[in-house]
C-alpha cells in the first residue's frame, strides 16, 4: 500500500483495446456504457432514452483516452514520472502531478483522434445551426459510484468553449485532471491500479439558458412523493444551485401536473454569458424583471412532466438540473442538464401512518381520540 511502483507496474501492462469506439454520441450512451463513456455521459444517454431532451453532444470515450495516452507513448512517460514517488511526500507528489499535467496538456492529439473530435464538433455545430457552437467540456468519470470521486480525478467542467482548438485544449485539461496530486494519492492509498484508471470527456452544447434551475421529484421539505418542486431563476442555473438568490419556487402535483403552489421571488442577480469573454458572470437582473415569474406556466408543466418521466425511468425520486435555451424555439427548448438520485429523503426510513389493525373503524376511532391540533 502506498507504493506507486506496484501500481505503475500494472498500468504499463495495459494495452489499447481494439474495436471499441473512440467517440460516442450521447444518444448512443446507456447505463451499461459507463466504463466506456463515464458516469456523466452514460446518465445523459439514459435521460435521452427516458424520453427527455438533453443538450446534444458526444463523449471522447475511455478508449479514446487510452488512444491519446498511447500516442507518443504518453502513458509510459507518466508511469516513469510516477515511479518511485511516495504519496506521503507531498512536495514530490505535487511536482510529479504538475509535470504530468503540463505534459498531457501540451501533447497534441494523434491526427486520427483529432480529426474524429473535430468532425464531432463540426457535426454538433450543424445540429445546433451554429458554427463554432459554444460547448461545455467536462470530465465524465468511470468511478462515480465510488465513495470518493477523486479516484478518477476532479470533476472538471469548462463552460462556453468555442472553436475546435479550444475544445481540444479543454479535453486535454479534463484528461489531465486525472493526475492531480490528490487523485494519485487516493488511488495509491486505496490500491487502485493506475493501469485501470481511465476517463471520458463529454463535449456538450452549452445551454444558453434564458432561465434555469433545479427540480426535485419529491418535496425536499416534507418528503411528499406526490409533488415535484421546481426552483428557477433567469440565466444559468449557477445562481440557484449556489443559493445566491431566492429563486422562484413552484410546487407541481406529480399526478395531475397542475401547479399547486407558487412563490415568485425578487431575483436581484443572475448568471449570464459575457459577450466579450464568452464566460458566465454574475449580473444584475433589470429592475423591471426582478419580480417577474422566471418560467411560464406551460414550461413549468413540461418540466414537471419530464421530471415525472425521469423518476419513472430510474424508479426513485430524483434531483435534476435543467435549463431553457434561448437559442431554440418554444416547444423544443427545455433541456435536462443532469439527473441524480435524491438522497436525503430516500435515505430516511419511513414509518407507517396506518393504524395497527388497518381497519377503517379503528383508524377513525384513534383519529377521533387524537383530534386535530390547531393551537
Amino acid at each position, binding site marked *: 500500500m502506498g507504493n506507486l511502483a506496484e501500481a505503475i507496474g500494472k498500468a504499463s501492462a495495459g494495452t489499447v483495446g481494439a474495436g471499441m469506439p473512440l467517440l460516442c454520441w450521447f444518444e448512443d450512451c446507456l447505463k451499461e456504457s459507463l466504463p466506456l463513456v463515464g458516469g456523466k455521459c452514460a446518465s445523459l444517454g439514459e435521460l435521452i432514452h427516458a424520453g427527455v431532451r438533453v443538450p446534444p453532444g458526444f463523449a471522447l470515450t475511455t478508449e479514446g483516452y487510452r488512444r491519446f495516452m498511447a500516442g507518443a507513448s504518453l502513458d509510459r512517460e507518466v508511469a516513469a514520472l510516477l515511479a518511485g514517488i511516495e504519496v506521503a511526500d507531498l512536495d514530490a507528489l505535487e511536482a510529479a502531478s504538475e509535470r504530468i499535467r503540463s505534459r498531457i496538456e501540451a501533447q497534441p492529439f494523434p491526427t486520427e483522434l483529432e480529426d474524429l473530435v473535430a468532425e464531432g464538433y463540426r457535426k454538433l455545430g450543424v445540429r445546433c445551426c451554429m458554427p463554432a457552437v459554444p460547448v461545455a467540456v467536462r470530465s465524465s468519470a468511470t468511478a462515480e459510484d465510488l465513495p470518493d470521486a477523486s479516484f478518477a480525478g476532479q470533476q472538471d467542467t469548462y463552460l462556453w468553449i468555442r472553436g475546435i482548438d479550444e475544445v481540444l485544449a479543454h479535453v486535454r485539461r479534463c484528461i489531465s485532471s486525472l493526475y492531480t496530486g490528490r487523485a494519485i494519492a487516493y488511488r495509491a492509498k486505496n490500491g487502485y491500479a493506475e493501469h485501470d484508471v481511465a476517463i471520458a470527456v463529454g463535449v456538450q452544447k452549452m445551454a444558453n439558458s434564458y432561465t434555469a434551475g433545479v427540480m426535485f421529484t419529491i*418535496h425536499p421539505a416534507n418528503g411528499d412523493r406526490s409533488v415535484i418542486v421546481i426552483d428557477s431563476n433567469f440565466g444559468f442555473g449557477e445562481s440557484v444551485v449556489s443559493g445566491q438568490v431566492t429563486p422562484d419556487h413552484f410546487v407541481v402535483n406529480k*399526478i395531475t401536473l397542475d401547479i399547486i403552489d407558487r412563490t415568485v421571488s425578487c431575483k436581484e442577480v443572475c448568471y449570464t454569458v459575457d459577450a466579450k469573454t464568452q464566460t458566465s458572470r454574475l449580473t444584475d437582473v433589470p429592475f423591471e424583471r426582478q419580480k417577474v415569474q422566471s418560467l411560464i406556466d406551460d414550461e413549468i408543466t413540461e418540466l414537471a412532466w419530464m421530471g415525472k418521466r425521469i423518476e419513472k425511468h430510474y424508479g426513485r425520486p430524483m434531483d435534476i438540473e435543467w435549463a431553457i435555451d434561448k437559442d431554440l424555439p418554444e416547444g423544443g427548448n427545455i433541456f435536462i442538464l443532469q439527473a441524480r438520485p435524491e438522497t436525503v429523503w430516500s435515505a430516511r426510513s419511513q414509518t407507517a401512518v396506518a393504524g395497527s389493525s388497518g381497519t377503517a373503524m379503528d383508524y377513525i376511532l384513534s383519529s377521533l381520540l387524537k383530534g386535530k391540533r390547531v393551537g
Partner: protein
Amino acid sequence: MKFPVPHDVKAKTIPGTEGWERMYPYQYQFVTDDAARNQYEKDTFWFYDGLHYPEPLYPFDTIWDEAWYLALSQFNNRIFMVPPVRGVDHRIINGYVYVSPVPVKDPEEIGRRVPNFMERAGYYYKNWDELEARWKVKMEATIRELEALKIPRLAEMEDISVVTDAIGESNGYHLLKNYDDLINLGIKCWQYHFEFLNLGYAAYVFFLDFVQKLFPSIPTQRVTQMISGIDVMMYQPDEELKKLARRAIELGVDEAVTFSPEWADVEAALKKLPAGVEWLKSLDLAREPWFNVSTGTGWFHHDRSWNDQMNVPLSGIATYIGKLRKGQSIDRPTEKVRAERDRITAEYRDLIEKEEDRKQFDELLGCAKTVFPYVENHLFYVEHWFHSVFWNKMREVAAIMKEHGVIEDIEDVWLMRRDEIKTALWDIVTAWATGVTPRGTATWPKEIGWRKGVMQKFKEWNAPPAIGTAPEVIQEPFTIVLWGVTNKSLADWASVQEVSDPDSITELKGFAGSPGVVEGKARVCRTVSEVGTLQEGEILVAPTTSPSWAPAFAKIGACVTDVGGVMSHAAIVCREYGMPAVVGTGHATKIIKTGMRVRVDGSTGAITITR
C-alpha cells in the same frame, strides 16, 4: 391567537337595533347576568358559521338552525357516543350564527364512551347500504306527508260536513294543529338529515387526514376527486333539462320553447301545439321531484325552487337547445371523469411506499366511498325537495295571517319566530271563533316594520370570523371538514382586517376548488335569476351556487364563490367540467364588479384583479 370577547362584541349594539334579542330564541344569547354561563361563553371558542349563513338569519329561518343544533348534537353525543365530542353549541349576535364544538374533557369519560361508539357507529358503517335504503323510504314518506298537509282557511261558516259527518272539530283547530304538524315534519326531516351525516363526515375526514399524512402537499380537491360519486342526485335536475332540450328538438317544438324567456308565454304557445302538449307532459314528469331543486342552498325562505321560478329552468333548457343546434355535445363526460378519478387514485396509491399504508388506504377509501353518496344525496332530499315544499306551505299559513290582518304581506311572516307565529295563529283563530278582531293586527305590523329595519342594519354589519378563546385541539368532524377550522384558518381569522378600501384590492384568496388557470371578464350574479346575462367564457362570481345553477356552468370559463369549501357545488361541478374554481373567498361578490378582468387560479386559490 387572540380573538374578541363575545360579550364585548355584542355590547356594541348597532344604534336602532336595541332589543333585537327578542327576534331569536333566548338560549341563543350571550349573557352577562349568569356568572357561570358567562364564564363558559368567554372560555369557549366560537366561530361565525359563514358557510351556511352568508347573511343574518331571519327570525323564522332560525328553525333550521335550531333543527341542526339539536340533530347534529344528539347524534354525536347521545346516540353514537362519539368519544371525545359532545354536540355543537350555538349563539347569535346581530343575526349571525356562531357555533362551537363541545369537547368531552374527562379522559375517563372518553374511555367509557369508546365501546359504545364502536358498537353503535360500527353498526351503521357495517350495515350502511341497507340502512341508507331504509332512510330513503322514511325520508320520502316524510316528504309525502308534508305535501299532503292541508293548511285550511277559516271560513265565515264551517262546512255542513262538519255537522253531517259529526267531525266535532273546526278548521280553526286544524289550522293550529297542522301548523304544529308542519313544524314537526320539518324538525323530523332534520333528524333524518343527521342520521348518517356525522359518521359520513367522520369517514371522509379521516380518509382525508390519512392521505394528507402520506402526501402533505395533496390538494383536498384531489382527495375529494378520489371518492366523489358520479351518479349523484345533485346532477339529476340538470340532466332533466338536457333531456327536455333533446325532447323539444325531437318533437320539433324547440322554437316554441326558446322564443321567449318568459315561462308564461312559452307555456301558452306550447299548449296550442299538439307536440307542445306532448312536451309539457314530459316536463311534468321531470318537475316532480327534480324541479324542487332550490335556486339557493335551500336554507332560507328566499331560496325559491325551479317550480317557483320556471324562467330559471327554461333558460337552462334554451341554453342546451342552442348547443344542440350548433351540434355541440351536452352530455356530461362521465366516462372521462371516471377514468380520470381511477387514474388519480391508482397513481397516488402507487406512490405509497409501505404495504400496511396501502392496505389502510384501501380500507379508508372503501369506507369513504360507501358513505359518500349519502353525504351528497341528502342535500337533495332535505335542503331542496323538502324545504322547497315546506317554504310554500309556510306561505299558505302566511296567506291566512295576511287575510286576518296580522301581517301586511305574505313575505312578512319570515320576520316572526316560529313560536310567535303559533301565538299569532291562536290570536287569529280565537278571534275568528269569537267574531272579534285579533289583537295582533295592531301590534305585529309595527313590530315587523321595525324588524325589517333591524335586518337591514344587520346586513351591513361585519361579523368577526371568530370570538372567544381558541382551543388547542379540535376533534369534532364537522368543525374540521365543513368549516375547515384548522391552524391555518384560525391564523387567517386572527389576522383578518376589515377591508378598508374594496376598490383598491387586486388579490383575493380562497380555497382551491378546481384546478387550472383562466383569465377573463367577470360577471357577478347574486342570484340564479341573473345567470341569463352570462356570456360564453365569462367568469361567474356568485355568493354560492347550487344544483339549479347547473346550466350556467355550460357557458362559463371559471367560477368564483364567496362561500363554500372544496366539497361545495361550484367546486364539484367545475372539477367535472375541467374548469378552474376558487371557492370560499369570503367577499368576492363585494369586491369584483361585472366587466372587470380577473385571473382565476383554481390550483392555488388565488384571484388577481386587473384594475
